[in-house]
């Protein structure tokens, strides 16, 4: 029989990567929070690849850390191999990626939740969600009722999850967990714009059955970089990944069995991610490609399970075994877990505001895959913002809205709530127009002051941050002032780096502007150089080398923020605004942008509409004076 169990300020449904950050942010801001998981053994689980970071995702993790989130610290504590991607392609696209021991990571995160003040971690399947007056209620399968002022939906792929393998399909969450079936019915009944998305994961095979001699080894970097700006533990490479390739036989096996794929047979209605196609998709769409690359990633140190990145599939189990065995080194692979596609309920994110609160449901927030995104890092980033904003709502503070010019997190959320998505959204560096400024190396400079102001960054950590910034400024000043004489030694260094020798002396900054001259390479002639940590002189070096580009982006940012500062009142009636085109009024009424900048990015809203809107806002502002 139904009974009332407990009242909280915030209830988070789901303890995956989004739910964890949301719950921790709420609790750390001093607000009583509960986080529910269908199974406590699924907390912080990585149901897909055993890695964190990657291009632009690495940026997200560093930003989460700079704001006071947990993911970066947890990744550092549990990584078993790490690489900085894209070295040589420029600092804007450097991205950290680490292989993670997934069981250790999950255990670590669960313990962080368990030991967090103001936070209760509870195992229960939430089956109902409703609002009475100003209070939200959730009901568990065992008919316990909890209440809260704010609820954050972070249901991942659990919500009405359904797994597909060949012609077999069944209701299920990821990794054999129970799905949240009744909650799926409840959110539809509530009136949320729910739709179906699909994703997939490849098979895991036993390490002992792999012939690594037929594969290329991929080692970690020699010098490792922490995800966290507050490095607390030693990090080192403990294991390698391997690379192999599909071949003509693999292709033929898949093509011969396409009719047995639920995707191609039209059984799955969910929209799959473009960026993460199944192997059958890749082979059909890129039939001219001879081979596809497969990464063998270890799932941890105390397990023999190996993840086959690149072989996601929903073909029947026997076909999966056949094509896996056609690949060099995997001829005798023993499959431990088969690949599958999973279809789940998620929401049209344009129903959300930039704070991740639903426009039409006061106190209800969404985060992670539920919002139509994909990826652990994207989920965690949204969880953090949703958690902060739910807490701010309880505390009567203004919501935290991160803009596109300040972070990838802001870009991600702005894309989701302004443009929406038609398939699971993945972060990419190319999605940020300000990427020369939004680098992974300066995430602290961009976000730590905000994290400190919110209360997620400790005083101690903030002081360390301020010292680093002071060192950066001092070193830049020193380089601007230091003169380099025109000597044979100097010119020998310049010539050895294939750049022209000096005719007369110059300031050191002039030399550093040359693309081929690095800070390190000037060490022999820079006699007054203080001993500085890499992350300090790296900032100085980048700021000098890319100065022209950075300045231009900063000018664009200034221009963009002008519109971003013009807030549009929540209850603006666009239909009544004189001069606004019908199409624009419709779009604006749907998206309900937070500010004029966001309004200008809605497709179908023209610069002329924005002018009209500005005039309307100025007029409305005066009339209210």
């Amino acid at each position, binding site marked *: 029989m139904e009974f009332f169990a407990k009242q909280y300020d915030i209830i988070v449904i789901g303890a995956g990567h989004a739910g964890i950050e949301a719950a921790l942010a709420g609790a750390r801001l001093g607000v009583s929070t509960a986080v529910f998981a269908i199974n406590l053994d699924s907390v912080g689980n990585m149901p897909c690849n055993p890695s964190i970071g990657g291009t632009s995702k690495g940026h997200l993790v560093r930003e989460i850390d700079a704001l006071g989130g947990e993911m970066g610290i947890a990744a550092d504590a549990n990584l078993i191999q790490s690489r900085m991607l894209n070295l040589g392609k*420029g600092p804007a696209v450097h991205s950290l990626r680490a292989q993670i021991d997934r069981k250790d990571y999950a255990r670590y995160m669960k313990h962080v939740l368990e030991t967090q003040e103001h936070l209760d971690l509870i195992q229960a399947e939430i089956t109902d969600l409703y609002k009475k007056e100003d209070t939200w209620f959730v009901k568990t399968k065992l008919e316990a009722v909890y209440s809260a002022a704010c609820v954050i939906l972070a249901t991942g792929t659990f919500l009405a999850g359904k797994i597909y393998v060949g012609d077999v399909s069944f209701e299920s969450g990821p990794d054999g967990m129970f799905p949240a079936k009744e909650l799926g019915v409840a959110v539809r009944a509530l009136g949320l714009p729910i739709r179906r998305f699909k994703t997939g994961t490849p098979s895991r095979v036993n390490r002992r059955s792999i012939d690594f001699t037929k594969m290329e080894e991929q080692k970690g970097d020699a010098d490792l970089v922490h995800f966290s700006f507050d490095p607390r533990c030693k990090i080192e490479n403990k294991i390698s990944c391997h690379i192999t390739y599909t071949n003509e036989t693999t292709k033929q096996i898949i093509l011969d069995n396409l009719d047995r794929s639920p995707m191609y047979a039209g059984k799955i209605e969910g929209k799959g991610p473009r960026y*993460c196609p199944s192997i059958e998709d*890749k082979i059909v*769409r890129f039939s001219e*490609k001879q081979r596809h690359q497969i990464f063998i990633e270890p799932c941890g140190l105390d397990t023999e399970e190996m993840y086959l990145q690149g072989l996601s599939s929903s073909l029947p189990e026997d076909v999966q075994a056949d094509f896996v065995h056609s690949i060099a080194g995997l001829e005798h692979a023993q499959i431990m877990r088969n690949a599958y596609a999973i279809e789940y309920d998620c929401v049209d994110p344009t129903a959300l505001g930039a704070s991740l609160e639903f426009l039409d449901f006061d106190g209800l927030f969404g985060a992670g895959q539920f919002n139509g995104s994909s990826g652990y890092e994207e989920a965690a980033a949204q969880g953090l913002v949703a958690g902060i904003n739910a807490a701010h709502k309880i505390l009567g503070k203004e919501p935290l809205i991160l803009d596109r010019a300040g972070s990838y997190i802001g870009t991600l959320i702005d894309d989701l709530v302004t443009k929406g998505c038609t398939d699971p959204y993945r972060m990419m560096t190319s999605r940020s*127009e300000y990427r020369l400024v939004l680098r992974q190396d300066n995430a602290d400079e961009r976000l730590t002051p905000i994290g400190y102001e919110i209360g997620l960054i400790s005083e101690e950590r903030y002081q360390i941050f301020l010292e680093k910034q002071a060192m950066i400024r001092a070193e830049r000043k020193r380089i601007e002032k230091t003169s380099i004489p025109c000597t044979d030694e100097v010119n020998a260094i310049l010539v050895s780096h294939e750049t022209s020798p000096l005719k007369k002396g110059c300031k050191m900054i002039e030399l550093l502007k040359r693309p081929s001259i690095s800070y390190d390479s000037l060490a022999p002639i820079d006699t007054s150089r203080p001993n500085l940590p890499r992350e300090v002189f790296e900032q100085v070096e980048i700021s000098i080398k890319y100065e022209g580009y950075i300045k231009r982006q900063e000018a664009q940012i200034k221009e963009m923020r002008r519109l971003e500062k013009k807030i549009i009142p929540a209850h603006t009636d666009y239909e009544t605004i004189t001069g606004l085109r019908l199409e624009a009024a419709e779009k604006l009424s749907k998206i309900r942008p937070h500010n004029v900048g966001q309004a200008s990015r809605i497709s179908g809203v*023209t610069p002329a509409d924005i*002018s*009209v809107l500005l*005039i309307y806002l100025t007029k409305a502002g005066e009339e209210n004076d």
Partner: protein
Amino acid sequence: MKTIAAISTAPAVGGIGVIRISGEQAIEIAQSVFRPLSTKKSLSEMKGYTAAFGYVHTPDNRKLDECVALVFRAPHSYTGENVVELSCHGGLFLLKKVLEAVYAAGAVPAEAGEFTKRAFLNKKIDLTEAEAVASIIAAHSDASAAAAVSAKDGVLFQKIQKIASDLVLLSAHLAAWTDYPDDDIDALDFGQLEKTLSTAKKECEALLSTFDAAQIVSVGVDTAIIGRTNVGKSSLMNLICGEEKSIVTDIAGTTRDVVETSVRMGNAVLKLSDTAGLRESEDKVEQIGIELSRKKALSASFILAVFDVSKPLEDEDFALLETIKNKRAILVLNKTDLSAVWQPEILEKYAKKTVFLSAKEGNGYQNLVDAVEDALGTKDFNPYAPMLATERQKVCLLNASGCIEEALDAIHMGLTLDAVNVSIDSAINAFLELTGERATERITEEIFKNFCVGK
């Protein structure tokens, strides 16, 4: 807020034309195109409500017109921002030139009703006017939407789409290559990268020249007829004009100063100046004329260089060819009525179009007309085509072209590809401003369409 500029007097031939510049940078921008006669005070040192007399000049320092500059300082101006009004003498053509210089200095074209809109936003005009302003903007946006629809069928629009698409593909490749470093995406060949960018830049310039063609058809192009003394420049001028504009004699140095006239050749309008012969002279008056003609030759956008086939080429001829090396020019080989003493192959290495002509008898005139139209790109000009030659479009294209140039510079300097890519994206954005799309979305689409990426 960007600084805007526009001609704010009626677009008709009149005594005085005013260009209004408004925005934070108005005074700095005006200062970079305006030089006061009295060098005591620059515009930036002037108080509001004061005026200065001087000259407006182009970015490369060519004097354009006499001008009075009026300075208004925020908030005491029509728009409430810093405003400079440049009152010029000249007709529409010169006024447009001045406006171009103002754009080149950093201003952007004002939208319809934008001065008034700013005045309103800065609370300089009454609330009751607000609705009217909104209606003006709305009407304009309807009109431009209609124009855009008809423009979509146009070749020019398609051309812009094509260049933008090439760049989008390039950017998508770069993005796929950086966003999916673990996928086996072919690294971008620098040679190919450079080639695509250079091609885009050339196409951009070609497009800009078609905008120029519209200008050439409507207002004309500055043209200089130059050549050594007595090669028949004045005869050519007269032939083109069909009337005696210049004095034609056989005595060297008869034409002492620049004679100007506008004539139509096919579709093109040439603003012609005949010049004193390019030779050293002891005669003072003639020297002045020669100096004048040299300057004219250097500043003209289009040059008809005349050579006498009946006499051997001299050092002066070759010096002349060197001077016009980088100019749009046609080499007119005159006096075919006499027997030729040299062959046109000598001029081959200058890679300019040559036309045989007898200015005296008029033989070969049609060839000249064809060559001129060819060089100016006016031959296929269709005056009934949709109005595509707007300043805004030109500014967008110039922007795009500048960004491509920047990307090429970054490559040549050896900067990393992230910087190159940002410049390419800026170029795409400049193009797409004309079609109302956004670069990031187009690029994302393209990545998934063309590259096999992902786990």
